[in-house]
């Protein structure tokens, strides 16, 4: 049960004056249950790549396998794939349309042809999972705050019971608290439901503390694909492509340069603090 991408290429506007090679020879293995961060600068191809995971875009060449089945093969049930691989886009405004929150969340499961009871129980479950208060269920989605809208958008996808949840910039436009709330909720979701989560972002800080694996995209190619602490060791290269390692990485490297014997691969503030205290106690 996993997604496998082989030699995937994608060219926007092939044959026109505005041709753009957006993905170049992507090879990835996305096994079940992982919490993956996908990072890249604007235009690095990350949004294009995730749209291939549920077949919204079809690669110009190459293949995508879902549970070892080629999704580009004749007769593959694309609609089923879309319920298995849930993709939440960056702007919740692009998908909210119903008169109230609850009905909107029901849209996904209803499209799967489920019964009314099943649809509603799934919608309740999804709204509970994203931590939206019950008093908002019957409110128009357009009256909610940015963070709440985003929760409803995520719930709209979760209600389809996906095995893989892909979130495109779920924190864009949120204040720091809203950002942490959403990310904590997503992490909890990953724990609770044991689903694969792919978090797309351009901020290392955002993903570093949550994910177990980071895929760095640059100019349509996979640049790094490793555990966060390994990826952050390349912080100079990351800087060169307009990204940055978390601030603690810089702090720890700075301390090392001054002769402190601390490990430089801490990824979170807490971890770094622990390492520094340990060092100070020893010396």
């Amino acid at each position, binding site marked *: 049960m996993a997604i496998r991408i082989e030699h995937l290429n994608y060219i926007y506007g092939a044959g026109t004056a505005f041709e753009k090679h957006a993905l170049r020879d992507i090879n990835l293995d996305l096994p079940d249950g992982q919490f993956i961060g996908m990072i890249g600068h604007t235009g690095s191809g990350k949004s294009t790549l995730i749209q291939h995971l549920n077949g919204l875009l079809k690669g110009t060449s190459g293949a995508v396998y879902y549970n070892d089945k080629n999704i580009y093969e004749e007769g593959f049930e694309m609609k089923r794939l879309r319920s298995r691989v849930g993709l939440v886009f960056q702007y919740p*405004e692009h998908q909210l349309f119903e008169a109230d929150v609850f009905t909107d969340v029901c849209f996904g499961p209803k*499209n799967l042809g489920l019964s009314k009871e099943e649809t509603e129980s799934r919608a309740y479950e999804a709204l509970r999972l994203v931590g939206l208060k019950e008093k908002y269920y019957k409110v128009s989605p357009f009256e909610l705050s940015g963070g709440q809208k985003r929760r409803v958008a995520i719930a709209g996808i979760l209600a389809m019971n996906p095995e893989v949840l892909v979130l495109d910039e779920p924190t864009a436009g949120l204040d720091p608290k809203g950002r942490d709330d959403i990310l904590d909720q997503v992490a909890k979701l990953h724990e609770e439901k044991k689903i694969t989560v792919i978090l797309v972002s351009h901020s290392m800080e955002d993903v570093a503390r949550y994910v177990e694996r980071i895929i760095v995209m640059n100019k349509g190619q996979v640049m790094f694909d490793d555990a966060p602490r390994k990826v952050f060791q390349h912080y100079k290269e990351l800087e060169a492509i307009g990204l940055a390692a978390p601030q603690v990485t810089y702090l720890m490297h700075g301390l090392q340069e001054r002769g402190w014997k601390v490990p430089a691969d801490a990824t979170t503030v807490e971890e770094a603090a622990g390492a520094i205290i340990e060092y100070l106690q020893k010396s």
Partner: protein
Amino acid sequence: MLRDITLGQYYPANSVLHKLDPRVKLAGTMVFIVSLFAFRSAEAYIGATLFLAAVIRISKVPLKFMLKGLKSIIFLMMLTVVFNLFLTRGTVVFRLGFLAVTEEGIETAVFMAIRLVYLIIGSSVMTLTTTPNDLTDGLEKAMRPLGKVRVPVHEIAMMMSIALRFIPILLEETDKIMKAQMARGADFESGGLIQKAKNMIPLLVPLFISAFRRANDLAMAMEARGYHGGEGRTKMKPLVYRGRDKIAYLLLLLYLVLMFLVNRIGFFAGLI
């Protein structure tokens, strides 16, 4: 999918035609269209063909893009051809039941087809070599005299350029919304007419909301920067005729005169 729709289909290239003042191109298109309809002889059409071929060559836009616009009028063209073919009176060539195909009919049908095709290609040359903004700028300036008779020229031009600017934005937005809803299992393709219309609701509601929000934001941004209509408004890049524009006007005049002569006294005599 939606990306394939071209409306303001500007094709960037570095040609003299791209650099010409939009007013010249507007006038040129008009002259060309007038010449198509005013002169009706085989010689005149040869002249128009040569002119069009030369312009296309100069524009550096691949012919493929010129012909794209024809797709949309194929139906209209067939209709005109069929009507002209069967409904023109004259010397009968052959009969198809109660319908008679005449010599005159064939002639008119062929000329009409050529006219339509040239009309579309001719205006495509303009839209392919002029950015929508330049085009509205040109229109505004060319129509300025109408302002004296209380035609709100500036407002019309502003509305046009905003509308043109919004087309690609809204297309892109539609694309994104469609994808977001397809990710939730929405289906925009199957079903009967009523079902299809119903399926559009998840697309149209977010699109309208976003369009209104954008319009609101734009109005606010324009006011914040002191926009108060056309009065006393200056341009960052005012349209000024340069040498090449004057030459282009001369060439257009020459084309018109030549076409007139060619049409009157035959092709070769006209050239001499």
